């Protein structure tokens, strides 16, 4: 991908704002500046790992709760 300065469809946002967005794929598609793209992809990666960790943690907690409820009716 070519680094084309100033040729962008979106303005740079604060990292804290980016983490709040549901999806930043549209921004990544529209971004032409390599440094900004790198920042966006980093945010996407961090969010992905956080989501996976949360899901795994939720599943484990769910298993323990199911076992506890099962134990109640045994």
């Amino acid at each position: 991908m070519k680094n084309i300065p100033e040729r962008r469809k979106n303005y740079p946002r604060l990292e804290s704002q980016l983490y709040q967005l549901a999806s930043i794929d549209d921004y990544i598609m529209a971004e032409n500046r390599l440094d900004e793209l790198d920042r966006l992809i980093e945010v996407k990666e961090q969010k992905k790992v956080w989501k996976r960790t949360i899901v795994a943690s939720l599943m484990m907690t769910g298993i323990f709760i199911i076992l506890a409820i099962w134990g109640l009716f045994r």
Partner: protein
Amino acid sequence: MTKAFAYKSWGLALFSVLVLWGINNLLLGVGAKVMQGNAIVYSCTAFTTGSLILLFYAGPGPLVKESMRSLDTWFYGITLLISYSLSFVLYSYVSSTEGTLLQRFSMIISLLIGWFFLSRRPGLGQVIGAVLVVLGICLIILGISSSIRAMVFLLMTIFSLFLAARIFAAEYHKPHIQAIEKFNYDPKARARVVGCVIFVISTMFALLTFSIAFVQSIGDQSLLIKGLPVLSDFFNTGNIVLGLLAGAFILAPMLVIEFNSSHDIKTESYLALTSLAAVSTWFWESVTSSLTGLSLGSFLATDVVACILITIGGICVAILKPDKDDLDKSELGGYLTREMQDLDAVSETRNIVFYALESYANDMAETAFKLGIPVGVIKAVLKDKSRTLAFSPWILKVVEKNYRNNVANVDVLTGLLNRNAFIAELKEASQKFEELTLLFIDLNKFKPINDTYGHDAGDLVLSGTARRLQKLFKNKSVITRWGGDEFCVLVFDVNKEKVAKKLKYINLILEKPFEYNENLISVSSAIGLASFPEDSGCIESLVSIADARMYQNKNKGFNNDR
């Protein structure tokens, strides 16, 4: 560290030990004794919800990836698992009070590790405190049946080693340190890191606990190991619910504070504070005994004396200050820190100092001035035999900037910018200024000076020419020694014609003789001019054009561009 910040850190650590540790031990006891549950299953569920709560509180953000991939995280998790497992085995040999007190041997181990490996020498008061703790531990061990004494001693030592290693791992946990330094103590960033660490622990803990329970349940029932879980323990509703709640409200803040305290007040002090855990557990158990139905049990006289000795000893170690190391005494603490883990920072510091010294002919005062630091800092780095001194993060930026400007980008002989730095300036200037004029200056008959009078004379001429050029072009210009006897001067916002009018004067100044060993040496110069954007819109070719014109002038025998 400011006083207010230090008080806050100590307050939080004290709150953790007196309240959170006490309540956690109380709930552990309730789960095991009142609910007839298994302590390992309780801890397993607590870690799971602990990570969930912290990750939800912190939300998505930086350092998740780093925390999950960091070896520090896994080291912390493994040491925690081993220390937990060993504590359960230890409790199967001694009473819970004795077990809690014996675990304080970790404080002694941490003091020794800090002293031998981290240059954190304990003060006299701390040594006295440590002796009191050892006396208390000896009292307990002597009171134990001789048949199991050796085993208890071995378990206590290994457990303490792993507990101390775990707290040191928290102190030096890289992503956590990043959360502090890069994100300015952001509580959410710190909670996110700790959440990830607990997630790793909970996953390992759950897999290990399930495996043990499975093996225990399908194996020979006569070989069951007391204390280890069986599958039916996972259906103990009361114990699991207790664990889930404790994880969310007790364990999560407790581990966040453990990480914070190990960094802010250091491992030795934090472990010393945990000597209050026995007292706090007893307090919470006695206060809630009517509610929980836990019997307090009776204490042996030796246990009480040991408890008093260990608690007082622990308080001494925690409160009394460690011996100041040479760095603190010399008041260079603001400039340098002892870096035990980040060896790159140590290496970078040494490289900066050594290269700068080499550039300034080992002149310490000049080097210190150029780097913007006291001479004492350079002396301390040179004397640092342990190779642990590094520039403090805040001073490193300043030193790096000074090093770039005064050492890396500078021609050592003349003190002018070197070629790379000049090209960078040239490119930057082409974006800032509308007009630039470049003078390419070559000294005529310089080689015979070197051959006749020697290199010292040649160096004198070069550095003298550089000083004259600096006087001639004081403002809005950049000068470099392009190479050998060639100099370049870039003049901002002045057109070629204006500069050309002054060429005669420039030549006149440069031709003035230099005095060397009672000899007068003089050189003439040939100058080529090129301007941006008039001669070329491409900044890279500007030097080539000026160079070519200088040669034309030199060959024609003229000294100016016209």
